[in-house]
């Protein structure tokens, strides 16, 4: 029985069950993002002191749900879809154990609903981190555990599919780079979920009364083995998608397979360490351990990200230059398809992730500098650059690509899609930069009231702090508008988008493959061949523009790093 269809526009082969699973996972992710986005409006309009929308209890409840729906449910549902795409579609293989994959999906949905219900009921406003000894309702933890088990099943389905593809010889040679990157993400995910189980299962038992004490510091250390490495799943996943998007849009090939894969390997080896970022100012943790751990041994995972930072745009530059965009340093970039949201979304994600998220992350993860940043609103500002723009916008860009390819629908309101990455990036960048500033002035995160209403003592923040949070608020609202535009386009496309004829589409023939009908009429796709060989010429600089951009990043990095040491040196001596 034929179980594949070939997308006439992209040439991708979709296994029937993988296709349905990708669709449901992506849709579940988008629904989570919708919830998170509505809640984000409540969060930002409350932090913006002139508006101060929600009462305190509701604010903390909404903030808890915002963090969990955005960072856990949206991102991981979407990642499972990406894993199935990377293993089944890219490798042209049947999906392993679709029954298990459905069971995993069901668990994830049950877990997500259960957790949301717990938070909505109001006695589980414990924030995403659910630090003990503050206690949530048992089904808060149980929901997270079920969700994690479901995601773990998804990881094993991915691994199983890689094995199937190998056995069926669906491809020739080594795994493609993008699949290799996805494999990296999966390996990290398995470690992460194991840490999650180690800490959340006892916490669940404690919440129902079987265990009477959980050490608060131990909880923090193990929780962050989950919390931090799960961010590395996101990094590995979105970097892989960057390679995919540049490959699809420009026909880019990795500048060097060896270098890019080595960088992914560094993630696997060193990312697990970084849990110390979050406990740099905790009691009793030794300095040697903190230094080793917070720097991922010796910043070797940062090194990996800096390498990807060169090789992703570098690959694009080389491809563009070979098409004749060779004028000056940047013609390849100027002549890029800025009106295509797949490109603009990817590119803004890359730049904001690297220049803002990356630099602030390393700076605040420095053992001593953390003293002036820990738990200020600088921290959420940093991770909105990494996950709310880096990961989320990358996933949005990929969604624009998948709507015609996977769902066979034309984009609904393409002009809105075209503008969306600009609005979202602009809004989020404003919010991020100003909240970074507010954090530097000591404004704290997870805090309902900058005026400290009702406190027995009083404190006045400087006027600039209020101003920064307010401007951040305006940026945040614009960011929510950008998020809403994404949802309108996606949901609109699925509901009202024109059904694509077998031969039409946005990305028609971008792989130069023959067109075919989009019905399941392919028994076994032809083997995925190795890339066309090219001549390797390594005499000069193949991507000078990218090199200049990389140096610009380095300069910002060095200057900002130095500024923060200088700031640290001005505070009270402590030891």
């Amino acid at each position: 029985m034929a179980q594949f269809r070939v997308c006439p526009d992209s040439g991708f082969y979709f296994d029937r069950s993988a296709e349905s699973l990708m669709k449901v996972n992506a849709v579940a992710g988008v629904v989570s993002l919708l919830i998170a986005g509505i809640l984000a409006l409540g969060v930002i309009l409350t932090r913006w002191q002139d508006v101060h929308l929600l009462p305190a209890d509701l604010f903390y409840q909404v903030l808890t749900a915002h963090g969990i729906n955005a960072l856990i449910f949206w991102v991981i549902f979407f990642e499972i879809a990406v894993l199935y795409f990377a293993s089944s579609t890219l490798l042209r293989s049947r999906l392993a154990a679709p029954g298990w994959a459905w069971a995993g999906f069901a668990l994830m949905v049950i877990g997500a609903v259960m957790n949301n219900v717990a938070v909505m009921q109001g006695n589980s406003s414990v924030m995403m981190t659910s630090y003990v000894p503050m206690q949530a309702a048992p089904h808060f933890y149980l929901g997270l555990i079920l969700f994690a088990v479901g995601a773990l099943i998804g990881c094993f389905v991915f691994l199983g599919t890689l094995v199937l593809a190998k056995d069926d010889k669906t491809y020739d040679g080594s795994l493609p780079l993008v699949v290799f990157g996805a494999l990296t993400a999966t390996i990290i995910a398995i470690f992460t979920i194991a840490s999650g189980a180690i800490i959340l299962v006892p916490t669940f038992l404690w919440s129902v009364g079987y265990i009477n004490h959980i050490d608060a510091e131990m909880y923090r250390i193990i929780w962050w083995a989950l919390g931090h490495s799960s961010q590395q799943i996101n990094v590995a996943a979105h970097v892989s998608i960057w390679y995919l998007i540049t490959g699809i849009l420009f026909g880019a090939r990795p500048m060097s397979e060896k270098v890019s894969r080595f960088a992914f390997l560094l993630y696997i080896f060193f990312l697990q360490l970084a849990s110390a970022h979050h406990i740099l100012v905790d009691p009793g943790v030794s300095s040697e351990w903190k230094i080793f751990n917070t720097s991922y041994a010796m910043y070797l995972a940062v090194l990996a990200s800096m390498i990807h930072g060169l090789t992703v745009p570098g690959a694009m530059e080389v491809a563009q230059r070979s098409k004749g965009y060779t004028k000056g340093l940047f013609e390849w970039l100027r002549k890029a398809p800025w009106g295509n949201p797949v490109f603009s979304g990817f590119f803004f994600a890359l730049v904001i992730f690297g220049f803002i998220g990356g630099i602030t992350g390393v700076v605040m993860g420095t053992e001593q500098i953390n003293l002036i940043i820990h738990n200020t609103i600088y921290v959420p500002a940093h991770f909105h650059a990494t996950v709310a723009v880096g990961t989320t916008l990358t996933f949005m860009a990929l969604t624009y690509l998948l709507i015609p390819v996977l769902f066979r629908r034309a984009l609904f309101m393409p002009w809105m899609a075209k503008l969306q990455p600009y609005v979202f990036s602009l809004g989020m960048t404003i919010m991020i930069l100003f909240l970074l500033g507010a954090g530097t002035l000591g404004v704290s995160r997870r805090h309902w009231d900058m005026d400290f209403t009702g406190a027995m003592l009083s404190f006045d923040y400087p006027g600039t702090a209020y101003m920064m949070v307010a401007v951040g608020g305006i940026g945040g609202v614009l960011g929510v508008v950008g998020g809403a535009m994404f949802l309108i386009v996606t949901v609109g496309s699925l509901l009202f988008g024109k059904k694509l004829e077998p031969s039409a589409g946005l990305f028609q023939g971008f792989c130069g493959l023959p067109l075919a009908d989009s019905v399941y009429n392919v028994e076994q796709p032809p083997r995925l061949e190795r890339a066309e060989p090219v001549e390797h010429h390594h005499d000069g600089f193949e991507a000078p523009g990218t090199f200049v951009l990389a140096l610009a990043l380095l300069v910002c990095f060095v200057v900002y790093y130095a500024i923060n040491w200088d700031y640290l040196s001005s505070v009270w001596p402590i030891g």
Partner: protein
Amino acid sequence: MSSFQPPADRIWWQVPVGKQEIIWAGIALVWCLIMFFMMPYWHVYGKQNLSTEAYQTNAEKYGAAVEAFVEEYQTGVDEQSGMPIVTPPAGSDIYMLGRLWQWYPILNLEKGKSYRLHLSSLDWQHGFSLQPVNINLQVVPGYEMVINVAPDQAGEFTVICNEFCGIGHHTMLGKIHVKEN
């Protein structure tokens, strides 16, 4: 299309790497090493390093130690909050505790003198955030953290709680006064 195809060269790990990537990876590695060695460097030459002195404790034990400290050195009562004001001798062990929702007691310190500040929580986790200096520490129940502080400015400083600790979190403030000597 190639990043999502198997590498062109079967033995891709033997393909030589371009000059540009080697140079960039080299620069990046040097920068990573500089950042790495900055941290031990600051331990030797910098003045802001968090001590790692800490003890396991519990609410009764720590609460009793703070009460004994207050009793010994109390010099007044803050009118606004009714909280004791404590003026410990320079160089001594001083105590502060976090609980729902206050930082207790109010401390009177002298500029330029060094103190051993003990911090712990009697209930949930709290965040010790000294403003406007902007020093931030995590305060964890069951652990007593001891750090040396040497205020180098005079004035009134506020301790904000910056770890979420329930509905009154935003009302959790404390004070440290530093006087010129």
